[in-house]
């Protein structure tokens, strides 16, 4: 049985300022902060997760915000653009919304689809595209209602050093299909209805350098633990040198760097974000893995204060 991912599970990036990050992803994009925890390697750094109302796989973007951290350079060897899917007919709403927050955007067209491209406040490249697929988000915040809300990822644009090799891994190991090629961009599709359209680009892109304002890794969905272990073994046998399976509290993870230089992860759909707090209260309390629990007080003092707030933009708040 060949492994076939249904698409993106989550995307993880580095940014500098934590409150700016909350104001953008919750305040501007209207996503739900579904989990507030820490970087297990650096407990004075948050790990923030945003998604739809339940933080379903395919909707989750996660951040490590560290004040005054080195700015990276977006470029090849990285997931270059994070693409969000919005309901059909809602792009005009989003254009108006971005303008009201003084966020400049650019209109783009790929494979006959209209995109708007813009930077978040931390320097990441984002796009919105209208898509039929995916469930409407049930989350309403700061003027974004389910009618216009982001449903999850539309996909991503991968900036690869060697697009053919990146495509080969996605096709032969992760089960995507090539569905198009145009202006040097390869388009692949996974089997799901969200986070499934992946473009690979290399021309005219400088070399990426990791740091604030860049994506660290893109994670692909594995539907259960068995499938996850099988793909780990398959990657191992094929010489991709994946990590062992790592418990990340809300999913299990396996990492490997594909030959185009991009860090990939395979992440399991289970157990999800409601494993350690009730679904309706997710994201409110700082969640710590049990080995950090005795140090909660010190950790909370080290972390900057953040709040999810009804934010109207820099010039209006």
């Amino acid at each position, binding site marked *: 049985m060949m492994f076939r991912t249904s698409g993106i599970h989550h995307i993880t990036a580095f940014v500098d300022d934590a409150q700016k990050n909350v104001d953008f992803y919750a305040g501007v994009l209207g996503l739900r902060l579904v989990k507030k925890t820490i970087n297990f*390697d650096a407990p004075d750094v948050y790990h923030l997760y945003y998604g739809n109302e339940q933080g379903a796989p395919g909707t989750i973007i996660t951040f490590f915000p560290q004040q*005054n951290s080195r700015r990276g350079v977006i470029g090849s060897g990285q997931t270059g653009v994070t693409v969000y899917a919005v309901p059909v007919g809602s792009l005009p709403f989003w254009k108006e919304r971005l303008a009201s927050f003084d966020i400049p955007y650019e209109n783009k067209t790929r494979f006959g689809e209209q995109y708007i491209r813009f930077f978040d406040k931390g320097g990441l490249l984002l796009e919105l595209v209208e898509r039929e697929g995916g469930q409407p988000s049930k989350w309403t915040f700061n003027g974004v209602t389910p009618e216009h809300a982001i449903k999850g990822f539309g996909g991503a644009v991968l900036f690869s050093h060697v697009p053919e090799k990146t495509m080969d891994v996605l096709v032969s190991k992760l089960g995507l299909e090539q569905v198009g090629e145009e202006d040097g961009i390869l388009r692949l599709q996974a089997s799901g209805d969200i986070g499934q359209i992946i473009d690979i680009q290399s021309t005219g892109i400088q*070399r990426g350098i990791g740091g604030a304002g860049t994506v660290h890794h893109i994670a692909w969905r594995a539907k259960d633990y068995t499938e996850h272990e099988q793909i780990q073994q398959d990657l191992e046998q094929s010489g991709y040198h994946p990590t062992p399976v790592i418990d990340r509290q809300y999913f299990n993870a396996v990492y490997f760097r594909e030959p185009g230089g991009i*860090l990939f992860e395979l992440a399991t759909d289970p157990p999800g974000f409601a494993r350690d707090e009730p679904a309706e209260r997710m994201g409110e309390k700082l969640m710590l893995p049990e080995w950090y629990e005795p140090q909660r007080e010190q950790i909370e003092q080290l972390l900057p204060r953040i709040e999810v707030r009804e934010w109207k933009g820099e010039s209006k708040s």
Partner: protein
Amino acid sequence: MKHIYKAGAQADAPTILLLHGTGGTENDLIGLAEMIAPGAGILGVRGNVSENGMPRFFRRLAEGIFDEEDLIARTAELGSFVDAAAVEYGFDRSNVYALGYSNGANIAASLIFHQADVFKGAILHHPMVPLRGLELPDLKGLPVFIGAGENDPIVPRLETEELSSLLSGAGADVTMHWERQGHQLTRTEAEAAAAWFKTQG
């Protein structure tokens, strides 16, 4: 810093500073040092940073993303430690070679980036670029051996090449050795390092 010291066979033998990878100890690379530089003095050091109980030389936020402030502070700390150890144990501070793997190779590279005469030479197994945007000191003639994996999942090939050209650009005499065993430090890589070290007078 927690460490181990063994004097060299002769007074004029070099001292090898051992810098382990994440989760290692001051004893990790002793066997490697004995293979590469038989008869040399040994100063094995344990990293002062703990990542989930695993010793490291400096903090990181994720694979490949370093906490630069911590790296700079820890680089200075390690440099001072080596200076003090030379006085305490009476070895020749100007005849010290670094031998580092992974996280240890990264801090060795960071020391070189900060101070031209910190080592007489360096053997770096699977290093990354420790810092960017630094004006490197004049490294004229500094011999550096870099062992790397073409398919290393932790250090992309281009990053290895970037480090090599940064060092060469500052005047270092860089020898590259490529393997295809991921991030592992293999026997053949160790043998290549030993052969390189023999050519150092």
